[in-house]
């Protein structure tokens, strides 16, 4: 099995990356298993080693509540960055879309390592900022596209 290119550890010296990965607790999910639920306390950030995870939000359709996939994460990608940002509550639900293996990095251990190795902390937080920033830009664009559609429907 080839090692994933971890987006969160991009640009880190190999030994720093290894130290961070050593904090990880291996976790296996069966297809359909919930990793975390919306509103739950976020204590770990997760790296997808194999498989994939759907990130869902609830929608109400005809009086029934359904989980709608808004994003997905696959090998090498990270999820659960709410663990690193107050108020440390998940704003999505994560569900395995297939058999999935993850590394769960505890926030407390990660921050402890960052305090001892600020350069590694800077690199990881920079990578996280890039991931979060891209997601913000994508969802801003999606939002304004919906607004544009609303304008067109209103004028039609």
């Amino acid at each position, binding site marked *: 099995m080839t090692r994933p290119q971890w987006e969160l550890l991009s640009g880190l010296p190999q030994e720093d990356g290894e130290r961070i990965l050593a904090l990880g607790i291996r976790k296996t999910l069966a297809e359909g298993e919930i990793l975390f639920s919306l509103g739950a306390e976020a204590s770990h950030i997760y790296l997808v080693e194999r498989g994939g995870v759907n990130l869902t939000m609830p*929608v109400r*359709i*005809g009086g029934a509540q*359904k989980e709608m*996939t808004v994003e997905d994460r696959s090998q090498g990608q990270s999820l659960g960055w709410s663990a690193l940002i107050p108020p440390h509550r998940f704003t999505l639900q994560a569900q395995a879309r297939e058999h999935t293996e993850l590394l769960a990095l505890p926030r407390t251990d990660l921050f402890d390592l960052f305090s001892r190795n600020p350069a590694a902390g800077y690199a990881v937080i920079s990578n996280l900022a890039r991931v979060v920033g891209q997601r913000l830009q994508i969802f801003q664009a*999606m939002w304004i*596209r919906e607004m544009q559609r609303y304008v067109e429907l209103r004028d039609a």
Partner: protein
Amino acid sequence: MQPLLISLAFCILGIVVTFLLFGAAMGDRSEEVQPPKAPEPRQDGFFLEEGMDSSPIMETPTNALLLELEHRARTEHKAAESFVRGPSAESLHASSEPPQAN
């Protein structure tokens, strides 16, 4: 006199037994010819949570709509990613649907 009364009592007893047997036979038959009971209407109860689908007929359109929404979210996500790679007013509002084949 006494044999007459005994005979009369036996006759009455015979008639009663005959009626009872006839009644029982008719009762069984009436059960046989009853039409099958229609299923009782489903009652909302303890095991039907608020918000759950109460009818399986509703399940299909609900899931179809959910799939449609997810498809829409995927295509819009891709269109938005294209915008982020090359931001411009045109790419922001570019169509997310592939051109229709003729």
